[in-house]
């Protein structure tokens, strides 16, 4: 535990310092132009090796479990599990809302958690949303981005998949800051933490069986496709937390593209088979 705290502090403070130094007052404007187009991946060679390892791990262990889960457990029950996982992430979301200075959102997350844990039968149902209590989940990586920490280079972690130094620091801090971790029996087998980690992985993987199979089979460069999804997704979350319209980031890219009328190309017949 002490080692973990130390790690978080070191990584966190390094990033925070870096962030303050490089961002300064231009936080908003620089973030809106962040690396959505240019890929920041200096460790690509190592990342590709870890990525291949993760694919094998997925093929042998995670995917078969997810496929079985999907086949055996009815959709209704699987949706309940998704809701319960979402509910268990509300306390840490509330903590992050506070750290981001979002008092109103912190109130919504907390109220959601209380209502869904009780009226919503331990979070398996979501009456809070019908009452208009809707919120996004927040993690510490997103909080760091609100604080001006830039994501840093793209990194693929063994087992955990796509990340970057900012999100990895966030991941480590989450286990320290999450109230559900503290009261949920820590990392002991059978604890709430183990339920969330294990079920969370299976829940998420089972929702993506066909899509990921499809993506893997049809990709020109699967590694690059996943990298783009991850980076774009995280940057747009960061933009939404800073209330920047994320489509403005894209506009720059699309505006750079001149509509080229010089070459019309062949008239191609489409065949359906």
């Amino acid at each position, binding site marked *: 535990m002490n080692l973990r705290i130390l790690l978080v502090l070191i990584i966190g403070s390094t990033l925070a310092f870096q962030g303050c130094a490089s961002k300064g007052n231009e936080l908003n404007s620089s973030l809106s132009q962040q690396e959505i187009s240019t890929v920041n991946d200096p460790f690509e060679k190592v990342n590709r090796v870890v990525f291949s390892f993760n694919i094998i791990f997925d093929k042998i262990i995670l995917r078969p479990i997810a496929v079985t889960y999907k086949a055996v457990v009815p959709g209704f029950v699987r949706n309940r599990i998704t809701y319960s996982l979402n509910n268990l992430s509300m306390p840490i979301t509330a903590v992050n809302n506070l750290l981001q200075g979002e008092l109103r959102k912190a109130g919504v997350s907390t109220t959601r958690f209380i209502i869904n844990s009780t009226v919503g039968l331990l979070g398996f149902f979501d009456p809070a949303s019908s009452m208009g209590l809707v919120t996004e989940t927040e993690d510490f990586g997103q909080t760091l981005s609100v604080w001006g920490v830039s994501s840093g280079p793209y990194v693929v972690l063994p087992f955990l998949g796509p990340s970057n130094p900012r999100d990895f620091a966030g991941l480590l801090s989450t286990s320290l800051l999450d109230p559900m971790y503290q009261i949920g029996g820590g990392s002991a087998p059978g604890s709430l933490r183990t339920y969330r980690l294990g079920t969370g992985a299976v829940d998420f993987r089972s929702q993506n069986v066909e899509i990921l199979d499809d993506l893997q089979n049809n990709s020109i460069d699967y590694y690059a496709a996943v990298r783009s*999804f991850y980076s774009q997704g995280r940057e747009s979350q960061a933009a939404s937390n800073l209330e920047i319209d994320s489509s403005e980031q894209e506009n720059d890219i699309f505006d750079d593209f001149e509509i080229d009328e010089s070459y019309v190309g062949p008239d191609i017949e489409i065949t359906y088979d």
Partner: protein
Amino acid sequence: MTKLKIHIYILILCCSFNPAVLASNFTEEENFVTSFADSAISILSDDSLSDVERTSSFTELVMSSIDLNLISKFVLSKAWKDASDEQKEEYLIAFKDYFVSSYANKLDQYAGEKVDVVGSQEAGKYVIVESNIIREGTDTLKINLKWRLLNKDNQIKIIDLNIEGISLVIAQREEFQSFLANNDYNLDKLIEKIVSVSD
């Protein structure tokens, strides 16, 4: 847009975020998205069609609604300008096959989902129409979709689909650029790869 990578965002996001409330200024574009989505859903959920018929009607609808020529050039980026006419032709044919074959397989899972348009805004020479789809079997899990449209000579075409903050065209472009960077920027190798994947 390729492969209808619709659910991949879950891999990354696991939650939906509230779209900003947009003023609806572009009625024509909004209607275009609504009618495109309605037609797509009605094709996908039409049980009287055979699989082949469903795939071909869907492909026809998509092909008539997007500007594939523009997308093809955009995803190739700088390499397009450096290509010979022969390479351009080969590439356009290969990309079209790839585009058709990669999303035609997995259509069934999108049947029954309704698209609600929530607003639109101008974005340079484009218009972005924002919409939500509700995950099947739930009433609260939303997926946010943004359609980038180009109105050229009174003809509206889809240029990009952004799912929960992820632009499919930009993702495709980064994939192609990455392949080129790892293969000495050899366009012929990319074309070869595109052909082999769509076979």
